[in-house]
């Protein structure tokens, strides 16, 4: 399984929704505390376990997250620690990039998500407690959602309802929003500690997973959100990111500060179905490919990006 070494500490990895073999990696220097950042666009070589870098974009401040456009195959957006969002187009020559710099957030932008159904807009989650809605053709945000009392770490569009999204925040709540409504439509006080990530089930649009500093992942049904559907324990430290599989209804993957990437089946009693501890530092980014069933990637502060097929050892060569 191939490995890609980044010069800076990894923060996020995302598969392209257009090209099976393409990924984007967000990295930040000095663990994201202070320093430059870099966005890598990498390709998996088909013949062997090799990863080639297509292009890399340097930024003045660390990059915390990256998201591919769902409408343009060569466009990606990057969340920068100085509060701006940079838009890159890999089809244009490198000196034309970045194409846009959208600066509205007052603090670090920590999460991005592109709308997978309507494909025209994306959300940004920031440590200034707000979520903003953007489109690529406008230099200013369309909406600002300000209700959280602390940093918003992650935001996720609902895979079926194009207007609904969820945001996970350090104020220990997950809020469900509808862009047609002025405020949040639901508040789920999911954990006693900060919630670092949330994601919707792709096959049941009422199920949402939340990952928290309390080392657990909880699955909630928004129709009955007082009690979680399932609680997944097994990580040794805070869970940084959780992602539902685009191909299987019950499968989700998570990465944690305990340096492992775990696979779960939340409908089963013994939910942990796989565990990879290939990282030697915090595993902070994980993604499942929408185009290839079972293909997953992870990155961590150990400056490595692993891409492997589910069921195999990421470190196998």
């Amino acid at each position, binding site marked *: 399984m191939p490995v890609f070494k980044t010069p800076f500490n990894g923060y996020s990895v995302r598969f392209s929704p*257009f090209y*099976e073999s*393409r990924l984007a990696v967000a990295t930040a*220097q*000095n*663990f994201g*505390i*202070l320093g430059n950042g870099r966005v890598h666009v990498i*390709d*998996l070589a088909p013949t062997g*376990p090799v990863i080639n870098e*297509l292009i890399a*974009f*340097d*930024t003045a401040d660390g990059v915390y997250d990256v998201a591919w456009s769902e*409408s*343009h*195959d*060569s466009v990606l957006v990057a969340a920068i620690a100085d509060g701006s969002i*940079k*838009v890159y*187009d890999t*089809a*244009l020559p490198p000196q*034309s*990039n*970045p194409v*846009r710099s959208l600066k509205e957030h007052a603090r670090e932008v920590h999460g991005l998500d592109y709308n*997978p*159904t309507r494909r025209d807009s994306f959300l940004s989650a920031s440590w200034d407690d707000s979520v903003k809605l953007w489109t*690529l053709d406008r230099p200013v945000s369309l909406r600002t959602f300000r209700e*959280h*009392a*602390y940093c918003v770490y992650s935001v996720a569009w609902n*895979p*079926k*309802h194009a207007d609904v999204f969820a945001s996970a925040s350090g*104020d*220990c709540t997950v809020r*469900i929003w509808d862009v047609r409504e002025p*405020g*949040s*439509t639901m508040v789920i*006080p999911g954990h006693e500690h*900060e919630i670092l990530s949330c994601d919707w089930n792709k096959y049941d649009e009422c199920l949402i997973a939340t990952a928290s500093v309390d*080392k657990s992942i909880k699955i909630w049904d928004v129709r009955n959100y007082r009690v979680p559907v399932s609680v997944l324990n097994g990580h*040794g*430290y805070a869970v940084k990111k959780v992602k539902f599989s*685009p191909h*299987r209804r019950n499968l989700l993957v998570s990465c944690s*500060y305990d*340096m492992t990437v775990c696979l779960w089946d939340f409908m089963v009693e013994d939910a942990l179905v796989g565990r990879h*501890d290939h990282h030697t*530092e915090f595993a902070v980014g994980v993604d499942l490919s*929408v*185009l*290839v069933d079972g293909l997953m990637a992870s990155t961590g*502060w150990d400056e490595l990006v692993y891409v492997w097929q589910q069921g*195999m050892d990421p470190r*196998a060569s």
Partner: protein
Amino acid sequence: MATTQSPSPPNSNDDKPQADSAEVVHEANQVQQDVGAEAAKHSVPASVFVNSEPMREDQVSNAVKFLSHPKVRGSPVIYRRSFLERKGLTKEEIDEAFRRVPDPTPSSQPASLNQDGQEKSSSNVQTQAPIQTPQPVAVAPAGIASSVTVARRQFHWNHAVSAVGLLAASGCGTALLIKKVIIPKLKLWVRKVVLEEENDYAKKIDAKPSLVEEAAAAAKAAAAAASDVAKASQEMLNSKNEERRRFEEFMNLMDVQMQEMKSMSNSIRKLEGQANSSGRAFSDHDDHRVSSSSTKQSYANGKVDVNVQPGRSSTPPASAEPPHPKSYMEIMEMIQRGEKPSNIREVNDMPPNPNQQLSNPRIAPRTKPWEAQNGSRHQVLQSQTSAEGLNQNGRDNGLNYLLDDESSTPWWQRKNVRITEIENEDEVKATGPFGVRTNEQPPPLVQRTWVPPQPPPVAMLEAGEAIWRPKSAPKETATQEQSADDQSAAHPSEVTDELQRITKMSESAGAVEMNGGFSTGSSAVKQEQENSYGEN
């Protein structure tokens, strides 16, 4: 504590607190009912992402109590809302609680001062004799009274004020009692004690001689014991001194040995320094980092040993803090000292042309696997065609690879690492171990190979799909048609092929959902597939 102060808002007069509060109660009741009606109307929307629970009265009253607390009043509104949300209240309940609690002044100090003044004035009104000492006594029972009167009722202003008055009165009464009753008792008791002492003293004089003798005997015994003890302690001192002397001798010997060893190590270092270049001294820091990273590598194989480099973070979250890498701690310390890490450089990441046009998309968006659920057969078809469509050249920007016959699938498609070639679609199908989707179609999507599509046919295919499946989202068809228009000019010949293919597929059962996962094979191959599909 809380409720005594809150129900007496600054604007109500002291003369008739009870009357005012009664009026306010009445108004607030009406307001509450109106709000309740409005809330009921709002919680009707059809979306499942809205909380449609009715308002829980106990939660709201708890929230009101919380919000009425003076400390809470001093905190920003957003933290109060956040706390209530974390306790599980819905938005409506929180809004209702905020409505019920009278809007506080921006700073809590004037309010509390006002209320303290009101308390004092009320207690003066209630008591008949102005007494200095009962004032603090009155305040304390008032505080207790407030906690006692935290009842289930909503509007307890009346009760609270009357309770305060009662307790103030009782406090004053007890104070009076103390002065009038207890103090005389104290005096009597003191006199008694004094008389008893005098009697005891007289008795003691009689008993003196015998006591004296006994005391003398006891003193002698004590002296003897003391002398014994003194002897024993002297012996111990002597032994300790001896031990100390021996210890000091030992220490001296050790020092001598240490010095010898130091001199030896110095000489070794000198030898080393002569052997190596002097640059080694400067690279110590890097070596340290390298060694730390190598120790990290050694942990890589299976051992989740989180003691990589035990560190201490500055702001731990409530749960145990995971051990941060050592260089992370170094950087944190550097920044706390005000230093900047040296590896940062100036990067200009502003867009050179903020109005730069984005390039046109080359590929039409592909529907997601979960969207394609309606029509499982179409998934099958896609798999079959994509599997058959091997050995194609992908002509995408950036994906410049050729697939030759041998390595027919990219490595990431293979479920089994042993398989280097995919011989047979059938074999692949058979080894598919997973039931991928909720529908019951057997062949899993995973085994299919995918070859990067050529844009125009894909676009045309999607347009074709749009034609045959009018219920797909209009937006998608719009984008597809647009991209089709953009690219159709470039490949006219292939367009005709595709049109033929589309017409053929329309003849087979059902509409075809051919997502953008296709290769353009030779048309012969495709026709074979269509024939096989038609047979199924």
